[in-house]
């Protein structure tokens, strides 16, 4: 007997209209996805309605009607045969088995890769599929694997590779080294004060000069990328909708206002990617009922799942992401922040780039920029900095085959490699930068994607310093973690990789901290020009200092000017002249970060989102 097509049955039951069916069939032609999945993703039917119809159709039985009973019937012995990652990769949950049959719960019984996987594992058993929705699948995984996932998310990296975890800020050797250095400085100041100060000034200037030169080299290569990006462009059009894989999006949320969630769900709906192939996971902390209520109120599309991250320490974004990673189904995965608005075609672009790049590229980093650049003085300067960082420095690192510290959001990963690397370090407050470096030292590369995600620039100085001090503290954590075995770093990524770690990761925080001191000394010299300072600034130290002052400032201003010019944000060109003011602020944040490294290393200074939206509402 040939059963009726599912579309017709749904029509007969008045669950969908003819127009809706026609629209779904049109999409099916394009993407090749299952009609049911398309109907659900478009919100025309809900999964339970659909599965009940399929059950009536007689092909498969829907098993999710009584979840409690279902849970009791699941065979725990059977669960141990699989890895928990298999359940999400192939979208199934093992139910029970006997001598002849293996019963499997899945939202998609026609999934050939699932059938192939199971047949390989149980060649002699007949496979019996029962229907279950994706939400129920999550629920079951949560029930059976919550503790395991949580343990993996919190201490997986530490157990597997303790040397790569920031759970210990300083190793004993690092403590000894630091103590020795401090003692040397103190003794030097009391015994040979002039020489000690000269050496310190010389080193600070030398380090800063190296930073300036390194950034100049990176920027000049980074500026080339638009000339060489034609290498990629040809691949962008090759991807057809039917070839697009499932793409997971992790969205860690914590005390997000309603307006931010609204903006987020709109951004998700606007993505140019087949919705049935999107696997969106809202990661909500267990104690954050407010955000959960906001999320529910926004009625996000059916491709959005809520995963509740259990209470625990450290309560950080990477821990939530690691927990969410366990639930991800996609071949590729990305992370967005709550306030992000990615360019519509970003995911398609990412797939095209992954398909055309070598397998050692484990991640593509998008450019980040701000949609509220013109909100106030701070956001303008922040935009200048971001444009320079993401449009020049990161592409420069990429072109020169150097390790790239990932930016906080819009990192597009190959999910399998991300799992292999152990996800993010939950104890590192710039887990993204750390992951980029770790990937590099394990032989993977990070690429840059010519697409932009727009974020909300921090518009309040206090909030900005909080965020910036966390970043700079995290850079120091990363610097310390990867300097535990410098020889290993050199072996794995060469001298260039090691140098990048020192100058770009360590140098960013330490250089910015030095900057304030050097500026103060400059002003003292300028207004006083007394004998005292002149004796400290002579010969090479003076020349280095002047080089830093002139060339460092010139390049900093000019490159940020060029960055906004390239992006067509012409209004900000004048503001780049005021960059030094912003660098002083950064320096203050650097000192706060250094202080916190010793006092509260794992403390995650939450950035408040939605300030701009609130301001708009007030208006």
């Amino acid at each position, binding site marked *: 007997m040939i059963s009726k097509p599912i579309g017709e049955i749904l029509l007969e039951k008045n669950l969908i209209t003819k127009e809706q069916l026609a629209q779904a069939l049109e999409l099916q032609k394009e993407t090749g996805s299952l009609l049911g999945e398309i109907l659900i993703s478009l919100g025309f039917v809900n999964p339970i309605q659909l599965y009940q119809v399929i059950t009536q159709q007689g092909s498969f039985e829907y098993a999710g009607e009584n979840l409690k009973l279902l849970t009791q019937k699941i065979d725990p012995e059977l669960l141990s045969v699989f890895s928990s990652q298999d359940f999400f990769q192939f979208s199934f949950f093992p139910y029970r088995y006997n001598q002849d049959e293996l019963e499997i719960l899945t939202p998609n019984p026609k999934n050939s890769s699932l059938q192939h996987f199971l047949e390989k594992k149980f060649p002699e058993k007949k496979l019996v599929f029962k229907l279950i929705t994706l939400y129920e699948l999550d629920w079951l995984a949560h029930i059976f694997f919550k503790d395991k996932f949580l343990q993996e998310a919190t201490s997986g990296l530490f157990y597997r590779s303790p040397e790569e975890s920031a759970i210990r800020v300083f190793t004993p050797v690092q403590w000894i080294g630091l103590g020795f250095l401090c003692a040397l400085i103190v003794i030097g100041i009391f015994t040979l004060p002039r020489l000690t100060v000269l050496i310190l000034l010389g080193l600070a200037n030398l380090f800063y000069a190296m930073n300036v030169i390194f950034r100049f080299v990176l*920027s*000049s290569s980074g*500026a*080339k990328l*638009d*000339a060489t990006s034609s290498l990629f462009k040809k691949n962008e059009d090759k991807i057809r909708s039917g070839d697009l894989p499932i793409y997971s999006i992790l969205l860690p949320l914590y005390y997000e206002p309603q307006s931010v969630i609204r903006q987020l769900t709109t951004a998700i709906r606007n993505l140019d990617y087949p919705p049935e192939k999107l696997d969106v996971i809202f990661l909500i902390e267990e104690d954050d009922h407010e955000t959960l209520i906001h999320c529910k109120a926004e009625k996000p599309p059916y491709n959005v799942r809520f995963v509740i991250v259990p209470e625990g320490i450290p309560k950080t974004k990477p821990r939530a992401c690691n927990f969410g990673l366990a639930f991800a189904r996609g071949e590729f995965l990305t992370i967005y922040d709550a306030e992000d608005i990615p360019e519509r075609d970003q995911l398609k672009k990412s797939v095209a780039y992954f398909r055309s790049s070598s397998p050692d590229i484990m991640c593509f980093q998008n450019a980040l920029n701000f949609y509220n650049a013109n909100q106030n003085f701070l956001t303008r300067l922040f935009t200048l900095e971001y444009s320079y960082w993401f449009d020049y420095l990161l592409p420069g690192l990429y072109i020169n085959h150097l390790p790239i510290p990932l930016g906080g959001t819009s990192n597009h990963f190959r999910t399998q490699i991300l799992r292999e690397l152990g996800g993010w370090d939950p104890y590192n407050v710039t887990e993204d930068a750390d992951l980029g470096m770790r990937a590099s030292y394990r032989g993977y590369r990070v690429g840059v994607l010519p697409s932009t995600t727009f974020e909300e620039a921090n518009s309040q100085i206090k909030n900005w310093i909080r965020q910036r001090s966390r970043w700079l503290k995290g850079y120091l954590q990363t610097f310390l973690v990867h300097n535990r075995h410098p020889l290993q770093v050199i072996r794995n990524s060469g001298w260039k990789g090691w140098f990048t770690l020192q100058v770009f990761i360590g140098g960013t925080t330490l250089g910015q901290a030095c900057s304030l001191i050097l500026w103060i000394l400059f002003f003292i010299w*300028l207004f006083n*020009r007394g004998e005292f300072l002149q004796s400290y600034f*002579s*010969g090479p130290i*003076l*020349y280095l200092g*002047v080089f830093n002052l*002139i060339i460092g400032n*010139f390049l900093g*201003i*000019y*490159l940020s*000017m*060029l960055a906004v*010019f*390239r992006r*067509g944000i*012409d209004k900000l*060109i*004048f503001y780049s002249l005021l960059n030094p003011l912003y660098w002083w602020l950064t320096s203050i944040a650097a000192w706060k970060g250094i202080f916190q490294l010793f006092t509260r290393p794992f403390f995650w200074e939450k950035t408040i989102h939605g300030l701009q939206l609130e301001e708009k509402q007030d208006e």
Partner: protein
Amino acid sequence: MNKKTIPAIIFYVFCFFLFYFFTLLAREKGLISSEVDFYSNRAQIFFSSGAEQPKILFLAYPFLPFFFALIGYFPNLIPPVIGTFAVWLLSKIIINKNLPPFFILLIISSPFFLLSISSPSYFLLALFIVIVIAYIVQYHETQSIYFFFLAGISLGVGTLTHLSFLWFCIPVIIFQWLFFHDSLSRKVSLFLVSLFPPSFFLITILFFNWVFSGNPFLFLNTSPMNLIYSFPEFLTTSSYNLLMFFSKLWFIYPFLGLLFFQGKVRIFWMVSVIFLSFVLFQNQLLFLPISFLTIIGLLLWNKKSGYQLITGIIVFLIASGLGWYFFLNRQDSYFSAQGSYQNTLTPNQPIVQRTTHTVPLSFINFGQDAYLSPNYE
């Protein structure tokens, strides 16, 4: 290390020695500009001045030739250092523009190129002008910000070669305004971004002059180029210097300009070259056939056509050969270290007299020009 790095280093070392050899030859014939002697002298003073070093360094204008003098130190080593630097810069452009690398050999084999490197400030000024335009044109051709970035850096560094470079900002603006049809706001942005590097470096020069002397304009009066830069009070002097500037520019102007530009930019360049030929070289008819042959050689050059390629090379080589012939066999005022104008002056005449002239000028000379070697003072 890149596979091409070692051959490139060998090539630059070869260039260095070639320029060194030529400098010795030119000096023997009395054809070298005394500007190198002046810078060498400055460098020697710098290295022996102890605590005064910063002052000398920060008050030295133009800085870039002085910087090369710090590297070259000896008078005969400064031209090779500058020449090798120029070859390195020009090779970058030739590679970026996918031109045949053979071009660089043609450039360095030209006596005009070889001779002009002994006049550091003018040579670097002309070099940076050509480079800035080449990069700006390339930016507009490719829309790659990389070339705009390089143009900006070159504009900034160019300010350190010669104060006349600032005048060059005006043609840059006109050039961009005329040839590139963006919106008005974009043109203004382009103008601002282009103007930043030279302004920054100029302000830096003014700043250090102010810090060290209390007078931000001190460098106008104390540098080796003192009287050249006495504008606008001394209009005669400054107009004289503008022409001097163009006359020196001529040494590499047609070569590089025609090499790097195509289409309407090349036509613009051609017109300006012909115009300058008539204005500046009426007394130097000898130079005209050589320069026109050079221009025709470059215009005929087309790497896609074998016939044109060979014709171009032949014409170019004839031009270069003629140049060499005159250089080696004639003590013409064009090549002479003591140009016709300088010959009218005696070393004992006051500086002002020697530079604020009333006699008709022959603008083409490699002599003492308007600056003075300390030996003359």
